């Protein structure tokens, strides 16, 4: 299973052209769903209104070079390392899920388009990375699902209670888990292979087709919000927050201990 390309094995049942068309449709669904989401919720309008507001009230004009520098800093910190998370467990789970998903999607696309049949020998590294990516999504996703989610950890709800906010994480975990099971059964020649292939396809279609209703597009919105936060600190508006306290030496732990009661 770790060394064999599951999509090349599948080519006996489903034609490579059909598999490739399915991947293209999924990409279109994500792009279309995100654009619909942006227009429907007016998030882009909100973002640019805030941007203009911040620029007009700022004490310092952020130029193109500085903006590029802030964008690079955002990419290196908030995007690549999820530094905005204050809870280290949440951050670790998010990084496992994010990098696992990227690995899983990239290797899927490469295998489906580059090595769709057994005729073109697949480098062993690709199915290995596909499996590692899927396992990483499962590790981060199930950790988040059962132990870290605020409605479970903070509100005390059952981890099995399903709400609309769970659509993304549930469909992602279902897709990846069913994909792993399908690949395992297929490599062993099980008679359940077709059933799990169908379930895998259903879960994957829900994952990529439900973008306007799920949290899938947060992967595009959160970096924009992080950049806006950095820009507001650079231009002096600081999202209307107070400036950092300038006389901490008379406050906090440095303050004289009270002697009254």
């Amino acid at each position, binding site marked *: 299973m770790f060394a064999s390309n599951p999509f090349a094995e599948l080519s006996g049942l489903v034609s490579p052209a059909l598999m490739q068309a399915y991947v293209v449709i999924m990409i279109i669904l994500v792009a279309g769903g995100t654009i619909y989401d942006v227009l429907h919720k007016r*998030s882009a309008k*909100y973002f640019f209104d805030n941007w203009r507001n911040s620029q007009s009230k700022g004490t310092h004009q952020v130029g193109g070079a500085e903006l590029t520098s802030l964008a690079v800093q955002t990419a290196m910190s908030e995007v690549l390392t999820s530094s*905005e*998370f*204050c*809870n280290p467990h*949440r951050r670790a789970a998010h990084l496992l899920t994010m990098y696992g998903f990227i690995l899983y999607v990239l290797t899927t696309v490469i295998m489906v388009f580059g090595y769709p049949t057994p005729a073109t020998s697949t480098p062993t590294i690709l199915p290995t990375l596909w499996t590692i990516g899927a396992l990483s999504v499962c590790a981060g996703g199930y950790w988040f699902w059962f132990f870290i*989610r*605020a*409605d479970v*950890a*903070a*509100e005390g709800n059952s981890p099995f209670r399903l*709400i*609309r*906010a*769970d659509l993304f994480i549930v469909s992602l975990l279902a897709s990846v888990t069913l994909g792993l099971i399908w690949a395992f059964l297929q490599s062993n020649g099980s008679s359940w292979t077709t059933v799990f292939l169908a379930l895998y396809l259903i879960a994957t279609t829900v994952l990529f087709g439900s973008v306007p209703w799920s*949290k899938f597009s947060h992967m595009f*919105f*959160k970096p924009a*919000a992080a950049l806006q*936060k950095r820009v507001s600190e650079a231009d002096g508006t600081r*999202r*209307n*927050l*107070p*400036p*950092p*306290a*300038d*006389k*901490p030496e*008379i*406050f*906090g*732990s*440095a*303050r004289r*201990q*009270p*002697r009254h*009661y």
Partner: protein
Amino acid sequence: MPTFVYMTSCDGCGHCVDICPSDIMHIDKTYRRAYNIEPNMCWECYSCVKACPQNAIDCRGYADFAPLGHSVRTLREEEKGTISWKIKFRDGTEKNFVSPIRTTPWGSIKSPSDYALPSQEALKSQELAHEPEALNIEGGLPALTRDQLKQGVV
């Protein structure tokens, strides 16, 4: 001034849900972001505002002092032990306040479960748990004599 959440800044970590004494900060079922489910029941303690690591919670100022265009924002700095407030009025007036949060180093207060269980004798004592140490007075509670009573301050 009940609190509200900026959904674009909130990351749904649940700090406010944990800390709200009125149990009105909850996680939204559609977007998994925090929100104040019942502003009328808000005690206005601002625990959630101060606890939010993303500064995503704000105060909705009363109309008599902060009408349209106002903002009431707070910044907690644990390492400095300070809480700062910035009040922005509709006419552009700004007021800034800085106050100490506490008098002991951050993280130095032990939770009740970190202390040993009290003995039966301690339970019968007039003193409350951890007294007199917790009162921060060395040598026991000060005692008043009759001639000191009208002096006001010991």
